[in-house]
Structure formats: structure tokens, C-alpha cells
């Protein structure tokens, strides 16, 4: 894993949490959506908060796709859950919100989970190689850590 790859994983975490927060804020302003007015759920993406949230979620998708091109799904997902830790730290130290012991326990559990995953290899399945790629060793030799 290079520094650049860790930056991509950080991008996934930061963009996802920003996008979700903006969409959530926009939807709260819209209020309850009825199943009988399905058009309103499509038009909701024209609201500024939701539209900005969608832009951040697109940036998240770009980083997420990049990460999935060189790492397993079961490696990428837990490592990007760092976003929950970041959100709690922002709530405590920047927004000065009260963070309960249960939430600190949650942060600790996520940290341990991320620690478990990052100790292992990032990729355990063979990638399809281009015909002109010269690497042709066994799968284990190509496994990246």
C-alpha cells in the first residue's frame, strides 16, 4: 500500500460522510414523501442540498471505484468506516457536542475492526491482466499487502 492509495481510501471516507450528511439535511427539509407522489422523490434531487450531496457522492464513487480496482471489497469497506470515527471526533472537538460512552465504545470497535483488516493483504483475488503485462507469477506472488 502506497501513500497515494491511503489518500484514495481517505477520499472515500470523507466524500461519503459529507454527501450523506447533505442529502440527509435536504430530505429533512422536504419532509415525508408519499408513495402516491412518486414524482416528488425524483424532483427532490433539484434541491441545492441534495444536488450538492449527490456531487459529493459522485466524488465518493470515483475514489471507491479506484480503491476497488486494487483492493478487495472486504478490505475497502471496513477501512472506509474511518468516516464514522472522523464524524465523532468532529462532533466532539469542533462542534463541542456531548459524545456518550456508548459512542466512544463504537469508535473503539470500528478502530479495532479497521486495524484487523489493514494488517492483512489488500488483495486476495487475481486481477485480470492485460496481454502485454509481464507479471505472470502465481496468485500468491501477486497478492498485495
Amino acid at each position, binding site marked *: 500500500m502506497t501513500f497515494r492509495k491511503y489518500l484514495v481510501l481517505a477520499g472515500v471516507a470523507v466524500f461519503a460522510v459529507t454527501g450523506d450528511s447533505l442529502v440527509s439535511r435536504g430530505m429533512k427539509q422536504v419532509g415525508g414523501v408519499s408513495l402516491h407522489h412518486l414524482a416528488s422523490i425524483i424532483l427532490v434531487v433539484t434541491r441545492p442540498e441534495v444536488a450538492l450531496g449527490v456531487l459529493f457522492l459522485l466524488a465518493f464513487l470515483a475514489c471507491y471505484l479506484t480503491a476497488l480496482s486494487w483492493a478487495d471489497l*472486504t478490505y475497502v469497506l471496513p477501512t472506509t468506516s474511518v468516516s464514522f470515527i472522523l464524524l*465523532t471526533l468532529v462532533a466532539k472537538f469542533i462542534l463541542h457536542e456531548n459524545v456518550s460512552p456508548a459512542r466512544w465504545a463504537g469508535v473503539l470497535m470500528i478502530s479495532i475492526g479497521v486495524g484487523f483488516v489493514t494488517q492483512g493483504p489488500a488483495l486476495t*483475488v487475481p486481477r485480470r491482466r492485460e496481454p502485454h503485462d509481464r507479471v505472470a507469477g502465481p496468485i500468491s506472488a501477486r497478492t498485495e499487502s
Partner: protein
Amino acid sequence: MNQLYPWAAVVCIVLTSTTGDVLLSRTMKQVGDVGELRRRSGLAHVLAKILRNPNFVLAIMAMATAFYAMLFGLSWGDVSLVIPASTSLTFVTNAVAAKIFLHEAVDHRRWAAAVLVAGGVILLAL
């Protein structure tokens, strides 16, 4: 509003986002390392290769369904229920789906990570 509605949305989000994640992961393994490919052939080639992959189209459809299920869920229930419940369950279903469909080596470390992260997400919502 029926109290089952938010949970129906959660089940829908979990199933569709897991499907989307597995299909996206399969797409990107078929495409190859984006960084290497971009240096060799340029960004346009990378984008074309991703967009032309049928798994990618299916993945986007699944993720769009998950997104709209999330919008419905957020309008029916509290964000503190819908987001943590769907997010934490997705970590576990993704580990199961990655092992079955992507043949990833989900060892004890990765199972532990999926369960710890899922539990941690629930605790954050308390």
C-alpha cells in the same frame, strides 16, 4: 406512517447496496488497476472501459435503487435508525456476498472486522 416502512426501506437498501458493491468490485477487478491503466492509456480509455462493462451498468442500477430506497427511508423514519441499521447490516452482508460471489479470502480477521464495524456503527447511533 406504518412503523414497518422504515425497516422495509432498510432491507431494500441492504440488498440493493450489497448487489451494487459486489457488481462494482467485479467490474473494477475486470478493468484492472486504474492508476496503472490511466498512466498507460489515459483517463478517457479508463472511463470507456468502466462504462462499457455490463456489470457496471447493473451496479449503477442497483445503487440508484439503494439511493432512492434511502431517500424513502429517510423521509419515513429517523436518520438515526435508517442509516446505522442499513450501514451496519451492509458490512456483514457484503462479507458474505464477497466470499460467495467474488471468492475473496474472507479470513477470521475480515469476519471480525465486519462484525466489529457493524457493532460499532450501531453503538454510534445510541
